[in-house]
């Protein structure tokens, strides 16, 4: 663990990402991912004083404020490539497993596939996920079985397509999830909900998937 002392501009509640920029001025070799710096790209997910979040939208007042010690760690549970950069391959592999795209074998209409406003509203709280991995890497079930448990981020996307009125592969999607690991390793501890920087609720989505599995399988 490397330690740096950083001078915070007086009277400013800067973001953790800005603190990292100041650290990088002292040591250009410090590695971290960043891109949009406004909580949209999901690149700078990291563990700040024990809690996962996005460095670019976390003000230092939330993690102790000026004068306090800020401990930055890479997202837990994933292999570290360097400093705060983790290898997210297994996270993306789980995302890929849920086939995160619309499946519809019916002939495409001349215009787009329409949805009623009610059907469209069912996707709210699901499509906003930015795949920052803060939730999955805060989940003990994902730490223990990252190759088998899809994890909250992947399952949120699984439900996003299960809930989509335009998707016709609901039965196949559900059949792919009915094993003891993919969905049912979730113990409902809601760590994912506590850290999602977009305020989403993967636990509720997982509950909906369970309900769909029960409806289909009983």
């Amino acid at each position, binding site marked *: 663990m490397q330690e740096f002392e950083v001078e915070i501009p007086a009277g400013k509640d800067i973001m953790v990402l800005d603190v990292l920029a100041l650290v990088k001025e002292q040591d250009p070799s410090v590695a971290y991912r960043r891109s949009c710096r406004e909580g949209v790209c999901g690149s700078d997910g990291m563990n700040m004083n024990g809690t996962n979040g996005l460095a670019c939208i976390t003000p230092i007042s939330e993690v102790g404020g000026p004068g306090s010690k800020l401990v930055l760690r890479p997202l837990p549970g994933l292999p570290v490539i360097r400093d705060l950069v983790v290898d997210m391959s297994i996270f993306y592999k789980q995302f890929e497993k849920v086939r995160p795209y619309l499946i519809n074998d019916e002939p495409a209409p001349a215009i787009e596939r329409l949805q009623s406003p009610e059907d469209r509203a069912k996707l709210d709280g699901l499509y906003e996920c930015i795949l920052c991995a803060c939730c999955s890497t805060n989940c003990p079930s994902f730490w223990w079985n990252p190759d088998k448990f899809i994890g909250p981020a992947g399952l949120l996307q699984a439900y996003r397509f299960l809930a989509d009125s335009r998707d016709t592969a609901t039965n196949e999607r559900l059949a792919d999830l*009915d094993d003891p690991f993919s969905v049912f390793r979730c113990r409902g501890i809601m760590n994912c909900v506590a850290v999602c920087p977009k305020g989403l609720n993967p636990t509720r989505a997982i509950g909906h998937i369970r309900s769909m599995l029960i409806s289909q399988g009983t």
Partner: protein
Amino acid sequence: MVTNATNLSRSGLSDWLIQRFSAVILAAYSLCILGSLLMNPEMDYEQWRALFSGTGMRLFSLIALASLCAHAWIGMWTIGTDYLTERHLGSGATFIRLIYQAACVLLIAVYLLWGIEIFWSN
């Protein structure tokens, strides 16, 4: 779909439902025993024995015992597949996990058969 050969029902949904239903049965059985003890605080051995000698109570006990065994296996299997993995134990994890699972099955089978003998003898 993750393939599995050792979980109770081969299906995540079935295991999940069995665990919940068995929990409800065990809760009902515990309340039944607790209620009997509270209603008859001076219960002696003969009364205790009489409580379990009726066919209804024997059947309820058998169902509760089977529920306990199913519940225990699903729980122990989950613990084993969480912690006894290559991630924690290295390349020998599969062998250790199989030994652990075999020991759990054996122990649960002993408790089940022993329990049946206790409830249904005499």
